[in-house]
């Protein structure tokens, strides 16, 4: 195995971790924004059109 192979695995580990960290922080920020701005009002329930 050449050195680049192990570096690519390193990149995979660090890259996926970084993406998930950013996305989770955004997720938490969205929740905070929704809370602070009274962001989501439930509209009249609209179930899956297939449900009876």
């Amino acid at each position, binding site marked *: 195995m050449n050195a680049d192979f192990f570096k*690519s695995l390193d990149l995979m580990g660090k890259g996926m971790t970084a993406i998930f960290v*950013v996305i989770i922080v955004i997720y938490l920020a969205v929740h905070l924004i929704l809370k602070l701005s009274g962001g989501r009002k439930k509209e009249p329930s609209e179930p*899956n059109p297939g449900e009876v």
Partner: protein
Amino acid sequence: MEFLYEGLISITWQQVVMWVIGGLLVYLAIAKKLEPPLLLPMGFGAILVNLPLSGVLNQTLPGIGEVTGIIDWLFRVGIETSEAMPLLLFIGIGAMIDFGPLLSNPRLLLFGAAAQFGIFATVTAAVLLGFDLRDAAAIGIIGGADGPTSILVSQVLKSDYIGPIAIAAYSYMALVPIIQPFAIKMCTTEKERKIRMSYNPKSVSRLTRILFPIAVTIIAGLVAPASIALVGFLMFGNLIRECGVLKSLSDSAQKELVNLITLLLGITIAASMQADKFVALDTVKIMGLGLLAFIFDTIAGASFAKFLNFFLKEKINPMVGAAGISAFPMSSRVIQRMGLEADPTNHLLMHAAGANVSGQIASVIAGGVIIGLVPGLL
């Protein structure tokens, strides 16, 4: 009078191959309607730059010296120097995206992150096929399912394969309706594809829609600074859309800006499609790796949804996870169609659209993360 046949005797077989490839791209764009705004200019550009002694490329003329060719100039100014074209395109893309379905159900954000796995799996596969890490990373970003990001990352990493990478990215985005059903059926059961998800629409306030692009920009800038150009321009476009006071600019960004940049981007990319570099075994490998990237993305997104289902009371249809790739809106339409195939009364469009726009955010973050990490590994 030999100047009349100088071009004719300078033709190489590689150039003829490029004419065929260019013709094929034009055919696919017109007859099959596969990403016509990009594939048609790229196809025509491929023919243009591969005519012998083509005047659209820099030429050295006897007694005069170097004469600048328009396509070489466009490439240098619009892509090589500043990555201006792909970045400006992101303003328009941001203005086109409605993050409403995502804000209505923020947990869909996670699928965008999971579906980027294909990028990194492809980097490893490319290394195993003999590419060095820099080129492998540029090839892997095809898995971001996002043309401008692919062009930008491969340019920043100074990859020699920007042409094949751009073609693979745009071609496979157009082929999402064929690739995704195949990959989804490989990793899900019929029963899983029938899982129903009730849709509870929630109106998202204007303030939330305005704060979202600002918050995403700040977070991405602080946690993954290398992604800020991509994320920032995408979110700037979205802010123009959502602020409510720049309707005219929003319309221009969505139409004129996107059309103009797309028109120039396609033909400019052709500068990297010159026969001596393009007609090579590596191009075939890149096309294969690009396909692999889209398959890995889809399987990763669907598998992540299946994993979450172990912990959730209200199950998620794994196909919604597969919509976490960035190819918007094709992927969400594919998931809606497959949902209806499995159960004609099961509508998944809004869930899939939420995951799909999340994929758009995650793919630009992934692009920035790669730009940030790869130089440290070289």
